């Protein structure tokens, strides 16, 4: 009885997350029609995507109630993912002499 009640509560939570994801999708598309500069547009779009991704991970993938071992594993993932992205940034400081970026 108690478990059935818990599941019903969970299902209600999933509906709320679904509505939030739909609203955020509309917001993402709507904001893209505003004439922001590229840097601002990237920050806004990726920030909304991060919020949506967090909602999916926390509630649908049950990360919010997951065990410590999963978070230890994800800590390694974050480290290596950020390292990968920072390597691109580092490449700007390691260009052959005479290389110029054209924009």
């Amino acid at each position: 009885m108690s478990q059935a009640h818990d599941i019903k509560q969970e299902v209600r939570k999933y509906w709320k997350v679904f509505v939030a994801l739909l609203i955020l999708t509309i917001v993402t598309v709507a904001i893209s029609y505003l004439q922001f500069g590229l840097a601002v547009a990237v920050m806004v779009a990726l920030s909304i995507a991060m919020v949506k991704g967090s909602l999916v991970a926390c509630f649908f993938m049950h990360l919010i109630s997951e065990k410590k071992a999963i978070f230890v594993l994800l800590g390694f993932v974050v480290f290596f993912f950020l390292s990968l992205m920072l390597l691109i940034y580092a490449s700007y400081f390691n260009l052959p002499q005479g290389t110029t970026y054209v924009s």
Partner: protein
Amino acid sequence: MELMPYIVKERPDTGLFNAKLGIWLFLSSEVMLFGALFSAYVLLRTGAPHWPHGSSILNVPIGAFNTVVLIASSVTMVFSWAALKENKFGKFKLNLGLTILLAFVFLIVKAIEYGAKFEHHLYPKTSTFLAIYFTLTALHALHVIGGIVVNGYFWGPGARMWQAEPERFVNRIEIAGIYWHFVDLVWIFLFPTLYLL
């Protein structure tokens, strides 16, 4: 007696059953796979003299529609797991069936999008933007196909396990769900990156 330890019950030290640890390890490698391609996208874009705005080449309403389809499929997937927890097998079948159906809708829409590009002679070789667009979306579509195969198995022949080992079956659906939500999560980042920026 269990054939292998911890396929139903959690290990006392980690608090996880085998498949839960397994799927997260697999998804960790998937993050690096898509992460490598995302970093390639950033490198190509920042190094290009000119880069088209996604919406000038791609159809934003169709991309947004597919985003909603995939989000809806994630919801039906988690509902199918919740239905098993409530002991409602019929509701499980309905929700997992809807998940598979929505996955097919996503692929059909993607195929229509690809077809429209090919009709206009826009191929991966046409530009760097299209090369990375086709690479990222095709890899994602392969993951959708993988999800259809797994979910199709659990909807059909694999569902027999519900009679013999219900707890193990619930675990399997949870694991399949975690994979499916990851596929949704990747698209949540792909859509704005490719279509809106």
